[in-house]
């Protein structure tokens, strides 16, 4: 049985035991002088045997010496182990012990800059492996993890298979969960129940490897749960004081528009958060972490701005990124932290394009088409080159036209749409094309409903036409397509007279309303279709019969900005690029049908390496090992040696070391860190606390109480005794 202390440094207070002794000796040396007349009796007494010091005085001195010693013992929180424990301990006197290893694999136990791979989690595992190897034959082992992405909970349950437990331990990795007392206790109880159900009579020893840097950790909760009082518990504390502390990490890099025309700019927003336990400052104040966020566009550092991150909040900073060329433009944000590479930078691709290619399918008889007029007037500042390049076709040409050059197709003045046209438009949107549909007075409801159904819109055009005097409800301008009107009430958007429209019922969950009528029906709605997007207006943008208008939109001064905002938003708005981001070490599935050619696909990595893959069925699978470094992978058609080194980029895939993403773990980066050998076995510095109930502490407190009573009794009884003696 070993006596251990939770706070051994408190034992230093035992030095206070010297105070009464020193005072006693000092008083002896500095004896006060009394002018005494009856010295003859002292002389008579001195001729006899020297008296012994009174036992009461000695007892009082000993009591006063013992009090600070016992106080120091109690403050050190003594505990008792039946078996040796702790990081460097062994199990010499254990006969049949159920060793329950509990690993805190939360973020704070993960790798940090400066730990050279010897993360607390790795050190914990190494220490546990040593203890495992020192265990006796016949012992049982359970492994419990908490805080890891997976596996978590009771991963090894009361097994005598030491090798299995050892293998499981070796494969454990830190994640980004939270270490919770209750979770651990449930798993511990589960492992103990299993031994009970099997009729095994064993001692249970719980060894927790944790820095306990969690908000809800409570020794009391853990050590005194119902039914577990008799278990020997060992907590190995990891001293994190020498570590570099929590890291800052870029947790997100996003943009509201994935593409833009050349000469415009795109807002890029970076989020920075503290990864790991935020260390409190003096007096528990939250100390802001400072960093500089750098933005690198196309390989050039274009901005460097400071950012403070307070506590567990997420700091956000925005950059205005100019789009100055065609094609995929890599954007990298990085912070000057000294952590992992994955923490320090994130990547993004924006696409620059010379002009928006708008294909107007004009089925109306209005000339000139006000939509064409509105879009034609859009020029870049300082340039006479239009931002929008327009092309116009008849509806009959739609099925046969080359649509791959068009970014946006507008359908105006069409009374119906046949099946071939429908298929063409669905294929166009599936590959990422944008579609602006304007339902008019001559619309045949059934054909348009069929198109919307094929696009997967979840929009039902109800029978009849809604008539009256209506206006637009901007829905608080929340949608970015009309966000430009927010602060301009004179722009006329809210004054446009609407007389008739097609009422619709929006049933799809992914439909956004851009504008409503003031009676609550949708005026302009948008939804994703394939890789592309569709905007639907339920009142015509171009009137087929000017003498019987459905609205005054084309004549209103808000018409031009409204049409342009819609087209621009459709072009540059949210791209369905979720599947274009992957992690280093993980595979990537690309829809091969996006590629309108059958030759090999070239994958060009950011470090210059090139892989080729052949389209296989409908998908291209980028092997995990093919992407080894973070950055961009451009995927395009293999144009052969004659076509030059650079493929025609179709997509740029963003591969990240996404350790800072709370939703996923960069297994590869962590593994590469964890596989490094620890610089030193500094887990041996970990502290251990052993408990067997709390009786040593309770004994200390009882002794303290008793000593105080004895001290009081002796101190007062001394005087009483003298008086009695004298009387």
């Amino acid at each position, binding site marked *: 049985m070993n006596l251990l202390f939770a706070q051994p440094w408190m034992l230093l207070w035992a030095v206070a035991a010297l105070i009464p002794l020193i005072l006693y000796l000092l*008083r*002896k040396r500095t*004896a006060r*002088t009394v*002018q005494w*007349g*009856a010295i003859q009796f002292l002389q008579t*007494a*001195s001729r006899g045997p020297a008296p012994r010091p009174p036992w009461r005085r000695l007892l009082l001195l000993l009591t006063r010496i013992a009090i600070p010693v016992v106080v120091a013992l109690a403050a050190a929180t003594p505990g008792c182990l039946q078996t040796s424990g702790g990081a460097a301990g062994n199990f010499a006197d254990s006969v049949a012990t159920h060793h329950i290893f509990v690993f805190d694999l939360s973020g704070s136990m993960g790798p940090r800059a400066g730990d050279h791979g010897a993360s607390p989690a790795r050190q914990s595992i190494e220490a546990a492996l040593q203890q495992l190897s020192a265990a006796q034959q016949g012992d049982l082992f359970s492994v419990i993890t908490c805080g890891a992405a997976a596996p978590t909970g009771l991963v090894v349950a009361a097994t005598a298979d030491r090798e299995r437990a050892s293998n499981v331990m070796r494969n454990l990795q830190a994640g980004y969960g939270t270490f919770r007392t209750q979770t651990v206790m449930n798993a511990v109880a589960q492992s103990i129940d299993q031994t009970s159900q099997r009729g095994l009579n064993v001692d249970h020893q719980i060894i927790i490897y944790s820095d306990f840097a969690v908000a809800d950790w409570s020794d009391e909760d853990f050590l005194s749960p119902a039914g577990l009082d008799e278990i020997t518990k060992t907590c190995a504390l990891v001293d994190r004081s020498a570590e570099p502390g929590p890291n800052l990490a870029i947790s997100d890099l996003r943009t509201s528009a994935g593409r833009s025309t050349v000469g415009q700019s795109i807002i890029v927003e970076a989020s920075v958060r503290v990864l790991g336990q935020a260390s409190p400052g003096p007096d528990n104040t939250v100390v802001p972490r400072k960093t500089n966020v750098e933005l690198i566009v196309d390989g050039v550092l274009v901005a460097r701005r400071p950012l403070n991150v307070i506590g567990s909040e997420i700091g956000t900073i925005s950059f205005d990124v100019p789009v100055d060329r065609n094609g995929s433009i890599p954007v990298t944000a990085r912070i000057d932290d000294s952590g992992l590479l994955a923490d320090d930078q994130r990547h993004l691709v924006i696409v620059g394009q010379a002009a928006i290619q708008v294909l107007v399918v004009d089925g109306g008889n209005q000339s000139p088409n006000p939509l064409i007029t509105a879009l034609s007037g859009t020029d870049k500042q300082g340039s006479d080159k239009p931002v929008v390049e327009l092309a116009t076709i008849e509806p009959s040409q739609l099925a046969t036209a080359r649509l791959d050059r068009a970014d946006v197709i507008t359908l105006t003045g069409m009374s119906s749409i046949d099946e071939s046209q429908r298929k063409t438009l669905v294929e166009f949107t599936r590959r990422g094309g944008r579609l602006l549909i304007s339902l008019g007075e001559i619309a045949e409801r059934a054909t348009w409903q069929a198109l919307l159904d094929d696009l997967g819109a979840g929009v039902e055009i109800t029978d009849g036409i809604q008539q009256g005097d209506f206006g637009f409800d901007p829905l608080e301008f929340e949608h970015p397509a009309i966000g430009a009107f927010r602060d301009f009430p004179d722009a006329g958007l809210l004054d446009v007279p609407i007389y008739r429209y097609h009422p619709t019922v929006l049933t799809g969950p992914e439909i956004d309303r851009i504008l409503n009528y003031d009676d609550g029906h949708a005026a302009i709605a948008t939804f994703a279709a394939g890789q592309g997007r569709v905007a639907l207006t339920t009142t015509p943008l171009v009137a087929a019969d000017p003498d019987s208008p459905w609205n005054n939109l084309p004549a209103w001064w808000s018409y031009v900005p409204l049409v342009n905002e819609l087209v621009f938003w459709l072009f540059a708005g949210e791209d369905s690029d979720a599947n274009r981001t992957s992690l280093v070490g993980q595979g990537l599935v690309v829809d091969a049908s996006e590629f309108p050619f059958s030759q090999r696909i070239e994958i060009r990595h950011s470090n210059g390496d090139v892989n080729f893959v052949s389209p296989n069925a409908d998908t291209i699978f980028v092997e995990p090992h093919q992407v080894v470094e973070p950055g961009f992978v451009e995927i395009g058609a293999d144009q052969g040696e004659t076509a030059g080194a650079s493929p025609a980029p179709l997509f740029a895939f963003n591969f990240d070391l996404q350790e800072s993403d709370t939703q996923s773990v960069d297994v590869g980066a962590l593994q590469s860190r964890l596989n490094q050998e620890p610089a030193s076995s500094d887990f041996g510095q970990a502290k251990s606390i052993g408990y067997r109930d709390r009786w040593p502490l309770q004994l200390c407190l009882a002794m303290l109480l008793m000593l105080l009573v004895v001290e009081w009794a002796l101190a007062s009884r001394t005087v009483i005794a003298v*008086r009695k003696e004298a009387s």
Partner: protein
Amino acid sequence: MTSTTSFLDPRTLADLEGLALRTRYIIEGLLTGTHRSAHLGYSTEFSQHRPYVPGDELRHVDWKALGRTDRLYVKQFHDETNLTCTFLLDASASMSYRGARSPLSKFEYASCLVMSLAWLLRHQGDAISLTTFSDKPLRILPPAANDARLAEMIELIESTIPAGPSVIDVALRTWASGVGRRQLVVVVSDLFGDAGKVTHVLGDLDRFGHEVIVFQLCDRDEVEFPFEQHTCFADLESPESMSLDAESWREAYLHAFNEFNQQIRLACRQSSIDLCQLITDEPLAAALGNFLTTRIRT
């Protein structure tokens, strides 16, 4: 109503300046409680008539009896001879001790006691005398039966500073050798010294025909020895000192002290000497009561 005891409380006396004032205060207190006492006038009481014989002083003839009986009778009284009382006051250095709990030093307490007794004796017309001593008689006021003696005694006591070693046997024996007539001897001292010699000289005084009353004064500290820490005891009467753990030596000290007192008591009893042991924080009533009781008996 103020009790007699409160007048005799040493703490009250300590607040008064001057021995004369303290003495008057004590006596007033005493008389307040005893003014009807039969003790007063014992030496002038009528005893009997006897027939006149030539040579008797005419002032003792009872003229009223002559008128009633036509015979001359002479009134006889008890002994009309004045008593001579000598106070032997110890003025050695040990008498200057005053413990932390005592309002008066032993010498101050003894001074109040002597002057109170002297006033009483003088009040009934006795002659009083005072001798201070340490290792020998220091200053002597011979017997006198006038009130000026009281003032002289006060002056002598107030001018005396306790000093010097205490050798009671030598001092008393020296005093006794110069006194011929039988006297009432009141010894006021702590009696510290060789117990055998002290008791021997007290017995000698008794054998010389003196009537001896001994007031042994002790401080409360000397009786209880309440010291607890290591203490250096410096002798008041010599350069000697002893440094010791007082608490551990308490028992041995008290044993020696009590044995000394026991010897004194035993010797006084054997010699029919009235011994009154007083502690200086006790009221003077015990001392005065003891004295008066003794005088009634005689």
